[in-house]
């Protein structure tokens, strides 16, 4: 293993992409199925979360482009159909456009947009929601198709990422529901709708956090028990090695079990305010740990070879530039 080729920007991109996708997907499900026929009432309440989702996707794309070796030519990502990241980028772009169209229908200061986009908002939300689901799955599939990396190449990873993205989406919606400067649209019915959505998401997130704990433990422990040598080594790092503190205390403890207890304790300031924030932090930590676990099966002698090479800050490599050769 020479070094990590993907670092923080990719972890943040995967987190924000999943989070944005999760918010859009849940907003669509709530509006189109759970509270079908209430779109007029719920629309203004969901505008805030949808705007947050738009910001997440835009920021995620910024981090992705920033990580590129040649950011000015990022548009080439759309050119090859066999590449999974082409499809990811396409879904992100479509989602952002339709999300923007949805949000514009609720911008209070520009009645032109409002009048134009309002009739299409169910359609816009539908497209954004379906793309959101695609993006959540894609963030996991992008890693799991790279079969050189034992810890990524498992179908459990897209399932884990999708569950985590939906759960973080629940948390973000809970925090931002009804928060929207265009309160001109917010009627008493909208506020009641927001409370109803909150109740539903509260229960949904309890289920999702349970499921996520299960998938995470099954994935990591099965790697530890029966994975390839490389996967075992990586899983050991999570369970009892360098990442153990982050995994057990950070991700399982503060990211999942503690918020779960808060959720289960009923509706309170803790379960409304603190638990969703912890779920969001846990989701980010999950992406970080996964991106950093990019272990590849080494060729015989490969690790020895690269460990012996000088690091890029070795003094002799820069002696020429520093002018202190003699």
């Amino acid at each position, binding site marked *: *293993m*020479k070094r990590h*080729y*993907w670092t923080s920007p990719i972890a943040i991109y995967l987190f924000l992409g999943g989070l944005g996708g999760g918010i859009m997907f849940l907003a669509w499900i709530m509006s189109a199925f759970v509270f079908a026929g209430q779109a007029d009432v719920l629309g203004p309440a969901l505008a805030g979360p949808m705007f947050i989702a738009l910001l997440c996707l835009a920021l995620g794309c910024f981090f992705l482009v920033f*990580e*590129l*070796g*040649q*950011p*000015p*030519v*990022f548009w*080439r*990502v*759309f*050119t*090859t159909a*066999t*590449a*999974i*990241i*082409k499809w990811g*980028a396409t879904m992100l772009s479509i989602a952002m456009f339709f999300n923007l169209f949805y949000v514009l229908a609720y911008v209070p200061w520009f009645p032109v947009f409002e009048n134009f986009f309002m009739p299409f908002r169910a359609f816009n939300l539908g497209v954004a929601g379906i793309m959101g689901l695609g993006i959540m799955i894609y963030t996991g599939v992008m890693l799991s*198709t*790279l*079969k*050189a*990396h034992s810890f990524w190449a498992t179908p459990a990873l897209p399932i884990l990422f999708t569950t985590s993205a939906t759960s973080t989406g629940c948390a973000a919606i809970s925090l931002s529901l009804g928060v929207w400067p265009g309160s001109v649209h917010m009627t008493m019915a909208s506020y009641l709708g927001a409370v109803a959505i909150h109740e539903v998401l509260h229960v949904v997130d309890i289920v999702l956090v349970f499921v996520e704990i299960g998938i995470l433990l099954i994935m990591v422990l099965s790697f530890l028990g029966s994975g390839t040598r490389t996967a075992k080594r990586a899983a050991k790092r999570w369970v009892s090695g360098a990442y153990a503190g982050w995994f057990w205390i950070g991700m399982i403890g503060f990211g999942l079990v503690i918020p779960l207890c808060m959720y289960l304790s009923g509706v309170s300031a803790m379960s409304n305010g603190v638990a969703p924030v912890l779920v969001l932090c846990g989701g980010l930590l999950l992406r970080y740990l996964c991106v950093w676990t*990019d272990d*590849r*099966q*080494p*060729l*015989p*002698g*490969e690790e*020895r*070879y690269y460990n012996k090479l000088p690091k*890029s800050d070795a003094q002799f*490599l820069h002696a020429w530039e520093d002018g202190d050769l003699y």
Partner: protein
Amino acid sequence: MTRNVMVIDLRRCVGCQSCTVACRTWNDLPMDIIYNPVLTEGVQGDWPNVHRNWLPTLCMHCENPECVPCCPTGASQQDEDGTVWVDHTKCMGCKVCVNACPYGMRDVSHMVPRFDQYVRKCTFCRDRRQNEPGKDPYCVQTCHQKARIFGDIEDPNSEVSKLINSVETFRLFEELGTNPQIYYIPFLGGHR
């Protein structure tokens, strides 16, 4: 049709790293990029029965490369003769291919300006072979032990064909299904 492959005779390699240096010179590589490291697991066995083996490597120019279909820009390509290469005028440096290669044979230099980083890899000296047909990759020409042998596996009279058809060879991580096109003749004593 031509299908270029390399046979590496591990019985002959003495670990001098001449091929590594030759490659760096021909391709004018930045300091942090190595296309063809010569690996070793160090001295093995107990005195006095000790031995040390060397494993020269390079891009496997896989028949089913992991690195080509995943490239979103079309920069990663495969020629008809099997050569896998990167058109750096198209590469945007997303490093998907670097993460896709199971052999770790692609890299991005950090010693070039931050926003001018593209993926580099061995091309079997594609430029050299195009400009001077019949020439071997520079590492092959440089190996004084004749441990690296290059040629067309489809030509029954080529040295690589004869070797592959007459002595035992193995390939790295064959189980992955990439069908690597670097054939190794095992070390003396049959060590793989």
